[in-house]
């Protein structure tokens, strides 16, 4: 069987959902963040697959940007989480309840 674009897309869709699941059910901020990275990677995979099968480099270019953005986001995000941890000694999302109605 020939490997077509849909093979890659299914992998990417499943991976995306796994990542989303991670964001939804894990409670540790860092683990949630890892789920987010999975989602981004899934999107990247889809982009590259499309790019390849459409003979169009823009998709790969987008992946390049996505990776860069993800790196920046992770840097800021982790710094934030560390700052939070310093303040409250927790990285659990369920502890973020200082502002409730």
């Amino acid at each position, binding site marked *: 069987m020939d*490997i077509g*674009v*849909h*093979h*890659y*897309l*299914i*992998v990417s*869709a*499943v*991976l*995306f*959902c*796994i990542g*989303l*699941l*991670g964001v*939804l*059910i*894990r*409670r*540790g901020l*860092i*683990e949630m*963040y*890892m*789920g987010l*990275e*999975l989602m981004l*990677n899934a999107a*990247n*995979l889809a982009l*590259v*697959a499309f*790019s*390849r099968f459409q*003979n169009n*480099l*823009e998709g*790969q*270019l987008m*992946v*390049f940007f996505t*990776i*860069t*953005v*993800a*790196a920046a*986001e*992770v*840097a*800021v995000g*982790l*710094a*934030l*989480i*560390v700052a939070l941890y310093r303040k409250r000694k927790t*990285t*659990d999302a*369920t502890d973020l309840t200082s502002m409730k109605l």
Partner: protein
Amino acid sequence: MHETLFYIFAALTLLCGLLVVFNPFSRNPVTSAMFLVLTMISISGLFVLLQAYFLAAVQILVYAGAVMVLFLFVIMLLDLRESEQRRLKTFSTVLGLAAVGGLAAVMIGTVKHAQAGAATAIGETRALGKLLFTQHLFPFEIISVLLLVAMVGVILLSKREVE
């Protein structure tokens, strides 16, 4: 050859991805992070199969080499050993599973009929670079500002208190 490799890498990707989120053996964030690294590397393998060599290398270089090290670094620094002793809430888990399951069904259902054009060999680094520095120079510059922002932000957020 291509098929076999695809199935190997795809399986690895999904397996490791799943282990990032759900690990029956360990709740240790380091484990999650390590499996995430493996996921990244497998995805990079898929990129190679898609002849996106440049991106495969960048994927390893940036994600596996820098981003994940950062993750590991932070996990170690904060010493998050048993971060998840709290029980997951059953309700939210079930809800999440249901929602994601639905989404997965929709996405896979949609995506599985995607049509393939005839693939030809592209993915030259040179072509990518040309595109990047001519047509898409503006987003490139914006990204550089973004990196600057991230740098400033990280320093602001983590530098020691000055009195």
